[in-house]
């Protein structure tokens, strides 16, 4: 199993993701430079958090036009699993690989603390190994994480089972107090229509070792690894 971690110059969670994939999961990791144009020999891809190109424009707006993006689009179109974490999620929405936008937090402040999310869909590589309704604890760390989309889009996402995670309390109840940023429908993560591209604001790589307070996030990576393994040696095709 070989993971690719895209290294945008201002990414700051690329090393964290690579550590978890290598040292905790024992997988191979290729750091993919943002100016590269090819994604060869990679089974699954992570777009890590950070500030890709400084994000002095809308977060992820510049990264959506990076040299690596055409290869990433082709990888996603071929059904390859892609996980966008935090800034990676912002980049995927700016690139229109995922619907909606991520606006400034309702508090207008950066927020960094643990949250709980409820698994809403298991029809993605990153949640196939989880149970619907399970509650995971992972930290957030963002200033622009309020997920918004037109009402009809939100309805369509819900109807198609493309809402992957919702913010909830420790017991799994989706209540306003558990929504840290004002996201519509308490959405913490969504998928594309095929299910193979997933973006979320919480950081699973920061919740992959018990020493750091939670290892729930590791299960997203393990799920994708099992999903990839189950499809070998057949060439990667449709995600569902």
């Amino acid at each position, binding site marked *: 199993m070989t993971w690719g971690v895209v290294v945008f*110059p*201002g990414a*700051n*969670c690329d*090393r*964290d993701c690579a*550590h*978890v994939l290598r040292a905790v999961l024992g997988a191979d990791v290729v750091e993919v430079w943002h100016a590269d144009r090819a994604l060869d020999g990679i089974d699954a891809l992570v777009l890590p*958090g*950070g*500030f890709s*190109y*400084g*994000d*002095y424009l809308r977060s992820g707006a510049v990264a959506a036009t990076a040299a690596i993006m055409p290869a990433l689009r082709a990888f996603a179109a071929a059904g390859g699993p892609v996980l966008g974490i935090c800034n990676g999620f912002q980049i995927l929405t700016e690139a229109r690989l995922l619907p909606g936008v991520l606006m400034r937090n309702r508090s207008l*402040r*950066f*927020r*960094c*603390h643990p949250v709980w999310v409820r698994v809403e869909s298991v029809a993605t590589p990153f949640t196939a190994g989880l149970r619907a309704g399970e509650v995971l604890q992972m*930290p957030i*760390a963002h*200033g622009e994480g309020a997920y918004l989309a037109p009402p009809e889009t939100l309805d369509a996402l819900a109807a198609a089972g493309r809402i992957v995670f919702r913010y909830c309390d420790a017991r799994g109840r989706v209540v306003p107090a558990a929504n840290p940023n004002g996201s519509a429908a308490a959405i913490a993560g969504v998928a594309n229509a095929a299910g193979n591209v997933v973006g979320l604001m919480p*950081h699973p*790589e*920061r919740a*992959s*070792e018990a*020493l*750091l307070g939670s290892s729930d996030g590791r299960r997203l990576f393990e799920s994708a690894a099992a999903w990839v393994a189950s499809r070998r040696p057949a060439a990667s095709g449709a995600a569902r």
Partner: protein
Amino acid sequence: MSALEAAAASRAGLSARDHREVCARLGREPNPVEARMVAVMWSEHCGYKHSKTALRRLPGRSPRVLSGPGENAGVVALGGGWALAFKMESHNHPSAVDPYNGAATGVGGIIRDILAMGARPVALLDSLRFGPLDEPRPRRLAAGVIAGIAGYGNAIGVPTVGGELRTAPCYRDTPLVNVACLGLLRADRVATAAAAGPGNPVLYVGARTGRDGIGGAAFASTELDGAREATDRASVQMGDPFTGKLLIEATLQALETGGVVAIQDMGAAGLTCAASEMAARGGVGVTLDLDRVPLREAGMRPEEILLSESQERMLLVVTPAAVDAIAGIFRRWGLAAEVVGEVTAERRLRVLAAGRVVADLPPDVLAEAPAYDPASEPPADLRERWRLPQLPKTDPADALLRLLAHPDVASKRAVYEQYDHAVGIRTVVGPGADAAVLRVLEAPPLGVALAADGNARWCAADPRRGAAFVVLEAAANLACAGAEPVAVTDCLNFGSPERAAGYWAFVETIEGIAEACRALDVPVVGGNVSFYNEADGGAGIAPTPVVGLAGAVPDVARTVPVGFQRDGDVIVLVGDGETGLGASLYVQVVAGQAGGRPADPAPPRAAAAIACVRDAVRGGLLASAHDCADGGLAVALAEACVAGARGASVTWLAQPDVLFGEGTGRFVVSGSPSQYRALEAMARERRVALRVLGRVEGDRLRITPPGTRAPAVDLSVEAMRAAWTSLEV
């Protein structure tokens, strides 16, 4: 000196005294460019004129020290082949006129000092001081500073894992922003800032040079003047964390090549400081060609290029064989990289512009500012300050709630949730605990614990005792994480040293820090001095030494929390250091003004209690540990209840001095009865006093004087939590 010369020198910022000194050293008048360079390098901020003699009294030696004061940051061996680099610096003056950029560039600057040692920056702490937060100007400054720290620190990917925030009227117009950075590096890969090797190219890397922050160091060396605020803003640098991030990655890659001979950040006094200090340290010269410096705009004058404090720039001396590869690394990261000069055997800093020599002087003249020996005298009203004010009769429960809500004690969650404290996946214990704990990912289970402390209430009353208090409190914080102190860094924030009482307080502070460090056997490996924290002719700030302490944690999984963990656990007071209400928060809160003299900190006795708690944590003898600081025993008990969401029943005297008196080397710890027996044996052996206070139980804190039935304090954990979490920023 003619009237004309005096005017020219004064324009350059040189005092008449310094002008005479530089003429004597050069054997001639400096030309105008040289005069500007000297004036900035001899500013208090860069030159330490009023402080360097006294600073020599700080203990700097330890077998662990790999690099001490004199380099960009201290480096100390951690074990397992790893070392830490650690330094704290102030960015007070810029933050007073432009809080966002002042604080942001304070973060950027200290990160690059750590980077210059060859270390990856892995953690930040910040100590902040503002005027009362119920006033509009301090609120605006606080909001700007916090946003600046978040804006820069969050983007550059170095977690802000701790720090402190305190308020007092003396910081109304002169807020303090002290930032500490911790870096990790291989013990055999310590970089140096000493230039060497005549003929070696001098490589400029990072952002381009612009007209921002020109003369910032000189600006930071004078009192603030409200009328100048608009023009002073031009002295403040602008930070760009994205470029700062690129510089970290590119610099670490460049150091990996082995072709970097010397490296320094271009911070205060920019190119002038970096070139002259690197040359002076190495006993060599440097020739610079300003025409080759990457600029943001055309038409910059030589002195502007030499003194610009544009951020995110470093100066490297590299080997000729490696220069192309190293420049290539920086360019791949999108940064400027240009050879701007070379090292020379002749010990001169020679600066060329448009083919002409615009400055030519020995680097030592710039790097070695004169040392002053200012007058020192205790303040006339010292004895008066030591008199305890009349204390109104106060209900202890009511006093406890007021102390918990005081900004010096209250939870800073509203602040630290705005900082990314988890990036880097090293943060095992984040903000809100006594000390932050980071794992050394590369050498498990090794860790580093960090704490920053300062308490001007103690220091204003008795700078020597107060400074010792501050160091011992930081060490007590580390003990709760099971950490052994290995390195101290300090920011010494004061008013004008040209006032005899101000300089006296400075010298006393250094003595106090030194006494505590000797008792703890820990070296001071670096830091900075910030004088002239005064505004508009006011009295200036109270003496505010801020101490950053780094400690080694052998096993990061072996730390204990602040809060009580299990009903039925025994609550114990460790340590019996002298306590008193003098200079305590209790006096300030109930009398409305500070007063009295702090108790004798007795560093050796405190150090014994600190070592006992540390070893008890490491040995697994405790379920919780928390040191008694502001508000004394009662506040420590309340915080342990709130943090653990559990009550406690305590039998103890309820006089104000017993409940709220402050002293050093005292801890509220808890553990099971069998853990207590082991702790008792350990403490007896070390002659550290233990007193059983009571038990963890229920959802109320009850403190009942012995022999009575009615508790003197009976508060629900929820009421204490509400008071403690009431701070809004």
